[in-house]
């Protein structure tokens, strides 16, 4: 039996009251409830307040560069596909600096779970606009207010036929835990975009701002297998903001296409230099 305690308790560098704490709680609970032990889990992250999360629980960690949580995640997953791999990132990290990796890993569909702490602001660098910041939001850099169209991560993912697209809210740990569990259990690339208030720098999208707007999509109301409906739902933003699983599309994972992984993990394969001998004949 794995318990939440197995994942340890660590001192953090987050602001008191930060939404990150709830996400951390949900991640730990989800892993424990799924019976994943710390040694079989790998968390990769980039840079940002979100990306410090892997340091605050006990498991394998690769905390890399800004925007680059996904490339090491897929490299590690291919090297050892028995690991449960989660990439933990933020809206700046994932949709800004790492936008290209986001697009192409949705296309690859590795069996990896991507958790995005989406607080619609840059926290670590103290309050500049992020790709998901609201139009008109004024910052010290965006002095005339944001005029670049905000990126809609859910619509983007659905348009790319991402195999699992969901949204959670840091203010609802129980619901978020379930979402993360489903995302981990889903075979394929799964996105969990988490609405997360930044109490220090985002004075617009606060706990109460989100709480007044978010609602959970009931299973009967929304069919996650319907891509067009999922796309419509993903466009809903403003007075009402839906939470839950928007889109599920079961399809072969990146690993499924690789026959070399069928006989076991790459890391456990033994190599034999003599094997190249047969190739040398072709140059004679």
């Amino acid at each position, binding site marked *: 039996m794995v318990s939440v305690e197995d994942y340890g308790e660590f001192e953090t560098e987050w602001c008191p009251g930060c939404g990150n704490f709830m996400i951390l709680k949900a991640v730990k609970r989800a892993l424990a409830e799924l019976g994943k032990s710390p040694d079989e889990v790998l968390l990769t992250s980039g840079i940002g307040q979100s990306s410090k999360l892997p340091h605050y629980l006990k498991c394998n960690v*690769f905390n890399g560069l800004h925007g680059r949580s996904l490339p090491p995640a897929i490299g*590690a*997953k291919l*090297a050892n596909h028995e690991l449960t791999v989660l990439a933990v990132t933020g809206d700046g990290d994932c949709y800004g600096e790492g936008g*290209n990796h986001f697009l192409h890993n949705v296309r690859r569909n590795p069996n990896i779970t991507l958790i995005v702490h989406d607080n619609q602001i840059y926290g670590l660098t103290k309050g500049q606009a992020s790709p998901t910041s609201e139009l008109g939001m004024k910052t010290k850099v965006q002095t005339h207010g944001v005029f670049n169209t905000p990126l809609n991560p859910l619509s983007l993912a659905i348009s790319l036929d991402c195999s699992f697209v969901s949204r959670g809210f840091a203010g609802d740990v129980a619901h978020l835990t379930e979402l993360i569990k489903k995302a981990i259990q889903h075979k394929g690339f799964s996105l969990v975009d988490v609405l997360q208030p930044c109490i220090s720098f985002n004075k617009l999208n606060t706990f109460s701002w989100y709480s007044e707007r978010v609602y959970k999509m009931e299973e009967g109301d929304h069919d996650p297998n319907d891509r067009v409906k999922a796309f419509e739902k993903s466009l809903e933003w403003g007075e009402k903001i839906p939470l839950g699983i928007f889109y599920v599309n079961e399809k072969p994972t990146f690993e499924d296409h690789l026959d070399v992984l069928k006989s076991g993990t790459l890391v456990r394969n033994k190599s034999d*230099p003599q094997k190249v001998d047969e190739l*040398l004949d072709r140059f004679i």
Partner: protein
Amino acid sequence: MSTDLVIKVGGAAGQGLQTIGVALAKTFKKSGFNVFATQFYLSRVRGGHNTFQLRVSDEPIRAMPEKVDILIALDEESIEEQIEEMFDGVIIFDNDVIKINNNNDNNNGIFFHVPMLKIAKDVCGNKIYSNSVASGAALGVMCFEFDYLAKVLAEVFKKKGDEIVDNNIKAARAGYDYAKKNFSSGCKFTVSEPTDKDGRMLIAGNDAVGLGALAAGVQFLAAYPMTPSTGVMTYVAANADDFNVVVEQAEDEIAALNMVLGASFAGARAMTTTSGGGFCLMSEALGLSGITETPAVIFLSQRPGPATGLPTMTEQGDLQFVLTAAQGEFPRCVLAPGTPDDCFYMTAEAFNIADKYQIPVFIMSDQYLADSLFTCQRFDPSKVKVARYLMSDEELADTDEYKRYELTPTGISLRAIPGQAGKVVVADSDEHNEYGHIDQTIENRILMNEKRMKKLDLLREDMEPPHQYGPKDARITLVGWGSTYGPLMEVVNILISEGHSVNHLHFTHVFPLPLEATKNILGNSETIVCVENNATGQFAKLLESETGLHVSENVLRSDGKPYSPESIIRSMREKGVI
């Protein structure tokens, strides 16, 4: 009499000059000759002016001289561009296709019209076989044994079926017969076939690197295609299924090296392949390899920069960049093969160094080495040792607390991988403590920085001393690194035959430099001349700063072309070195 003949095929991209060139190269290799072939091509799929040049000799060769004996001209431009290089040679061309303006009487003797198109149509009913006619004609003017070419064509076209094979051989035979009968200086280029027909290989540098990686047990390769490195990626991909390798074409070079680091962190032997421009994007992840102490092998095939530069040409212009790329300081290793043998054995060595020291290791090649074909002895895979330097499950199970960055006297910490023996492994791009968690205290920073840098001292001891060629105590020492090995060896041979006192010191282990050995060998040299394919003498600077020795003269070339022995000697004369 010893044979030393240069054959050049010139034409537009898409005309099939490479097929002709490779067929001839294989033919001469089969008959026991040493063959060396280089390509000059432009960055386009069709058109332009490209050449495939091969040198045939019964002596070992690794460089291309500037004179051409036989030119197969597939277009007019080939004649215009190459006629200056002809010295008592012959230009084989099809007067029905190419019109020549031959106003110069001196040139009369050198043109030899072979109706390639007509012969192809007459014999096979299709003009596409005219290239085989050309191959045959080249052998015809040499009165060379035809059977070798027939065997090579049978191998080359085997996959396309018997009819295609037969037609190519028929066309080649017709070209051969035509040339033998009609070439006015009949058998002028006759070569005597070597008796020693051992099982040597004909191989390009890129293929040799790919073979070395497979021999070393590469398990993961992520790369973004970029000339002239792509051949390695392609070679490994072609054999990936048989060797249990995952090859992934990354969305960009940033992803490529980051993927490699993730795979390596998880325990796979991993490499990336790129050229200077791609490596620019990787320099961020290079630092990540440095601070996380994650092994990575980076194959970097140089081409002239900056930016897109000359995409299909050669240069050794990236050394200083590779030595200092990424912010901060951390150990790295730079290897620079000079021959296909080096490419094979040193690629395998690169993986062992990366794993032992947990650092990034570069294999620096260039377009010249990557794309040229060389004859060499068959590689011996039994000489390749795979050393992973990983903790066993038992060792790890006996460890109370696993510390990824444990402080040790050498700076090397024991390496475990995720998912092993119930332990966890933590790596971090921030400065971190022994467990891998963020630690920004000054005390920790000093310890960790020292730990990483300390590895360089031990690594330096593993670096092989430079290879000396020629008399030990020569007055002039020509210093080179990487792909200039072949041309410089020939320069030494030529200059010694002219009575000069000269030798060559060649570096394959470029960084960290094997200091003691280098100082011992070079300490007594009267004149050190560094020869490099770049504009600023990048290796010379490294040599001077590391050893304190003085480089007397730099011989440099950065026009995109490789060194010919003649060009080096010319430059030495201009500089008054000889």
